[in-house]
């Protein structure tokens, strides 16, 4: 019997019910927003049990909060994981994912096609922690094997990359990671657990920017790390943070004491305690509401996006379209395997006319909003080279699928004909010599 068989209920049922039974004291059916910082102890012994991690319960909302915990359980359920740790943003989730086992001098391998913000965080800010990243083209998984070093502690990829329409071969990458005795960490933000289930393919940790499709309405910044509970942290001596005595808990060994709950316990009791990147209860509530309609929204996001992609592919002012749902995509086969329900709603296209044309197109839209987010009910448009990927070198931008001519769209839930018309008028207007929406 596989782990999946333990789920008595389907994905859509868990989307609405997982983690949120009726509140037992009042009977409140929708999840209450526990807008409070701290929780009363029964007595000194109860407090001691909580601080020693000997019993379950709440101490202080920097570590755990009932509304946030409800969201954590829901996402853990949807990803079919053991536990989840929510935090202030997707970037915070990436720090939390590495924090339990990375030490100064350690390294990890990451895809060179990651979202530009991740490349900057890993390449620049992580360096200050003494964490070294090796960026690799993971399209050829053997490149990853070649890049392995003795101090490598993890492999990090996106299931579906932002913004390039790139799909990672999760099964092959998980095999390489496990041969090396390290976890595969998958950013599942763009796909969501509705479209892709990384743990089924061998991933060990999943991270999310919940800001995107999970909350879905562009209301709340948030992040999450989900642990599969299946990685053996004691198989080698690489993961001392989880296997060796933790001085801040009087020599407690997390993996020995908490077993498959060790990572998530550590991420709260040490990670959130000391990094402090806690999710606000109100944001957890908004995200819970969003997830209740995840499957409905993703179906429509994907259908609209594919129609827009087809339209752009046939447009005279468009050079190319990178969407893994198109037959022209080199990632079509991987998308069929890993994203059977649809290849997502964020993709890029190349306009004829390069950087200047790209800027003009985004400035000429009337319905698409020009902003730096994805996964909203509204359709969004951006020119990565001049915005989100601005910090990267030219070479990094091209590798990340964010060259000068590239425009990124996140397709929303509007009437699809209106989206096609808006992009068409923006392209036509941008192509007119001397004409500019801003003029």
């Amino acid at each position, binding site marked *: 019997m596989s782990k999946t068989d333990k789920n008595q*209920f389907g994905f859509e049922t868990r989307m609405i019910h997982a983690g949120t*039974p009726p509140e037992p*004291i009042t009977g409140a059916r929708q999840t209450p927003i526990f807008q409070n910082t701290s929780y009363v102890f029964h007595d000194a012994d109860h407090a001691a049990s909580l601080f020693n991690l000997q019993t*379950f319960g709440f101490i202080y909302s920097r570590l755990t909060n*009932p509304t946030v915990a409800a969201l*954590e359980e829901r996402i853990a359920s949807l990803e079919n994981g053991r*536990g989840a740790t929510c935090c202030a943003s997707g970037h915070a989730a990436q720090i939390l994912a590495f924090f339990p086992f990375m030490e100064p001098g350690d390294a990890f391998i990451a895809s060179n096609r990651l979202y530009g913000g991740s490349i900057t965080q890993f390449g620049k800010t992580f360096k200050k922690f003494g964490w070294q990243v090796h960026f690799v083209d993971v399209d050829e998984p053997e490149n990853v094997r070649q890049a392995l070093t003795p101090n490598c502690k993890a492999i990090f990829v996106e299931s579906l990359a932002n913004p390039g329409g790139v799909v990672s071969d999760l099964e092959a990458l998980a095999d390489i990671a496990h041969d090396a005795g390290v976890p595969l960490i998958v950013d599942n933000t763009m796909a969501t657990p509705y479209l892709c289930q990384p743990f089924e393919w061998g991933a060990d940790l999943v991270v999310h920017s919940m800001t995107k499709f999970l909350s879905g309405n562009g209301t709340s910044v948030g992040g999450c790390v989900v642990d599969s509970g299946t990685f053996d942290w004691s198989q080698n001596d690489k993961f001392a943070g989880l296997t060796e005595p933790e001085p801040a*808990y009087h020599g*407690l060994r997390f993996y020995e004491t908490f077993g498959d709950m060790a990572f998530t316990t550590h991420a709260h009791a040490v990670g959130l305690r000391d990094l402090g990147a806690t999710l606000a209860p109100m944001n957890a509530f908004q995200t819970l509401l969003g997830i209740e309609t995840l499957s409905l929204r993703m179906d429509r996001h994907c259908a609209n996006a594919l129609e827009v992609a087809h339209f752009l592919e046939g447009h005279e002012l468009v050079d190319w379209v990178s969407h893994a749902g198109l037959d022209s995509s080199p990632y079509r086969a991987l998308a069929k395997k890993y994203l059977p329900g649809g290849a997502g709603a964020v993709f890029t296209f190349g306009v004829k006319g390069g950087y200047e044309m790209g800027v003009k197109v985004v400035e000429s839209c009337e319905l698409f909003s020009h902003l730096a987010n994805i996964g909203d009910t509204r359709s969004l448009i951006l020119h990565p080279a001049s915005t989100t990927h601005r910090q990267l070198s030219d070479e990094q931008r091209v590798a990340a699928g964010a060259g000068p001519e590239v425009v990124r769209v996140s397709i929303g839930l509007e009437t699809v004909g209106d989206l096609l018309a808006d992009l068409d008028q923006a392209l036509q207007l941008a192509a007119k010599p001397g004409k500019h929406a801003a003029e």
Partner: protein
Amino acid sequence: MAEELIYSDAYLRGILGRVRTIAMVGASPNWNRPSYFVMKYLLEKGYGVVPVNPRAAGQEILGIPCIATLAEVPGAIDMVDVFRAGEAAGAIVDEAIALRETKGIAVVWMQIGVRNDAAAARAQAAGIEVVMDHCPKIEYGRLNSELSWGGFNSRIISSRRRKVHIR
């Protein structure tokens, strides 16, 4: 690898609901050992727990005298909780089977990582309910929403309002 052990929620709820007294074999007086965590939690939940460990016999663990062997535990034992490795578990299970009549032992529970299929079969043949490779603290917490407080996947979905006793 052996088949994954899956026990229904109803089976585990039944055991945790019927049991009153637990003999914990392999209990440790060291406060940061997993067995100490489990014993403290089960005591807080109202179970009677008798620590059994020949190396700690005569000492008190959480205020309760530690007993050298199962046979020497005074009074009835509803459940034997095995905090020893799988190989050692066989002999402990056999001792529980031998004491089933006199002590009233109805359940043998082996902790996470402890599994002995042959011993489990012997216990079941003797009319004893068996749980292996699970933790009663984690299962109690999971079945009563406490595990969910830590962000864990309890795999429990219910629209019923849980009864809580306000004293």
